């Protein structure tokens, strides 16, 4: 990120502490980072490192049955999201910041057609008419590469394959032209060829819509071609941050090196472990 770029998102000392069944766990331990408008940033780490919780904390989405305590500042376009009233936060979610999760089946309502679900979001956030929303939904489904979009918009989630469902979710996420798209392991449940299609789609949408991207994944291979900067997370903290090319070429932290070394490579049948 160049020094002149204005940060769209500026997170300072973000912490998240969960209490569940009287057990307190500090999952995010005061991390700071920023994302410029239109920038793509990757968050890499293993399960339990706090990368998904970071995204959910920013969006003030807590898992069910837990009480979460957030600390720090999440400054988005001039306002601190952690201080907003819930009603105002609802205007941010989906409209200014949208999310795509790993599992496209559980993120969709099984008893509503996918078109109706996208319509709803646009009508909630942008106040367009039913007819306008319908038109835009069909456009969006076409944009994410679903053929015969007008007819397919009437179909229910179970009538789509995993890759197609993820396209639907992406269409839904970009429907209100968000400034920031958070994609949390968006391709982890998908086949490798479908993964490549979804990655290309995300790149294209970023270009066409000019939105910033926060890509969360455990896979350095997925990160490689998608982002400009990377944050490496371990145990609720950011242990390394830098330009993606620098991180791959000259990882500084032992943990980053270990993660990179563990990525299997197509070219060599060499051993993964030292």
């Amino acid at each position: 990120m160049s020094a002149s770029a204005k940060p769209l998102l500026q997170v300072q000392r973000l912490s998240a502490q969960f209490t569940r069944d009287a057990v307190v766990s500090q999952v995010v331990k005061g991390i700071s980072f920023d994302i410029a408008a239109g920038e793509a940033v990757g968050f890499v780490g293993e399960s339990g490192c706090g990368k998904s919780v970071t995204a959910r904390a920013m969006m003030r989405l807590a898992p069910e049955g837990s009480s979460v305590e957030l600390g720090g500042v999440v400054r988005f376009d001039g306002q601190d999201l952690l201080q907003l009233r819930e009603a105002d936060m609802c205007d941010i979610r989906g409209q200014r910041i949208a999310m795509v999760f790993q599992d496209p089946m559980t993120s969709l309502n099984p008893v509503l057609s996918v078109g109706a679900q996208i319509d709803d979001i646009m009508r909630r956030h942008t106040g367009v008419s039913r007819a306008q929303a319908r038109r835009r939904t069909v456009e969006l489904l076409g944009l994410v590469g679903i053929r015969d979009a007008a007819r397919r918009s009437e179909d229910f989630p179970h009538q789509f394959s995993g890759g197609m469902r993820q396209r639907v979710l992406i269409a839904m996420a970009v429907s209100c032209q968000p400034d920031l798209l958070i994609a949390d392991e968006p391709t982890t449940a998908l086949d490798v060829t479908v993964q490549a299609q979804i990655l290309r789609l995300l790149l294209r949408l970023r270009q066409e819509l000019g939105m910033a991207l926060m890509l969360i994944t455990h896979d350095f291979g997925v990160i490689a071609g998608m982002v400009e900067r990377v944050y490496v997370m371990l145990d609720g903290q950011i242990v390394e941050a830098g330009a993606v090319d620098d991180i791959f070429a000259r990882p500084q932290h032992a943990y980053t090196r270990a993660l990179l070394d563990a990525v299997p490579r197509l070219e060599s049948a060499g051993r993964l472990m030292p």
Partner: protein
Amino acid sequence: MTTAAAAGQPVLQVRDLSVVFPARRGNPAVKAVDRVSFDIAPGQTLGLVGESGSGKTTTGRAILQLQSATAGSVKLLGQELTTMPRGDLRRMRRHMQFVLQNPYSSLHPRMTVARILTEPLQVHHSVAPAQMPDRITQLMELVGLEPDMVQRYPHEFSGGQRQRIVIARALAVHPDFVVCDEPVSALDVRTQAQIVELLRTLQDKLGLSYLFIAHDLALVRQVAHRVAVMYGGQLVELGDAAQVYETPAHPYTRSLLDAVPIPDPARQRAKLAAAPPEPEFDQHKDPLGPCVFGEDHGRTGNSTWHVVCPGHGVSCRFWPPAAF
């Protein structure tokens, strides 16, 4: 090691294996596995790759006789399994074991590790009761776990440790052949590397043969001596790992290989920016399958197996294709 393996025979011989799921409630019959043939040599790993729905898991289940084959032959250590009486098959199971994807659901949550490891020994009477504790200690050490952890329950272990327990259970009865169905895809990348390394070490030490089923081609590259590619229930390419990875003959194999992300930012950016080199394949829309060399080739008739070079075959009715 058994006599058949010692004589240089393949441990596993699969010939024209087919599994058809019959038509049900208006849905047409599904040829999940369609005339699949391959061998696995002693001490070697065959990587079976393909996308979800390609039939690779059903192939593994049909080999283990957990799914009955519609046609074809499966010989383990020279003995035909598909027609074997139940009692004999049960005894034969000592030679073939499996490791499944999810170490959270494949271990009984209310059984201690000691009981989990004892059960196969009892079923197959492979160890005298007095020797059980020693054998269990030995198994724990074999997979890199502390023997004094055996009184614990599965939930007290991490995902990687659980998969080690699953592997120990599979190895308890001294199998010759293990089906590993996506054994590491539920694990973190560093844990994946450790489990893959463990499987490889165990293979060297015990002379095991593996059928290693996975969708991750880069991972399969690390473990497989030979690689089989499945598409729409059929084998479209089979060869030594180096042949298949370095000179893939089938366009579907090439599209799979091309889709694997390269952990190198500059090269991966260039690849994503370029158009995919092969058309998109949809195995569900093209059940007759693997003839994808061109539209003229039509969708009828049987595919033929073409030898690219010794040990390396590709499925297509027209080989070499004019445009290749």
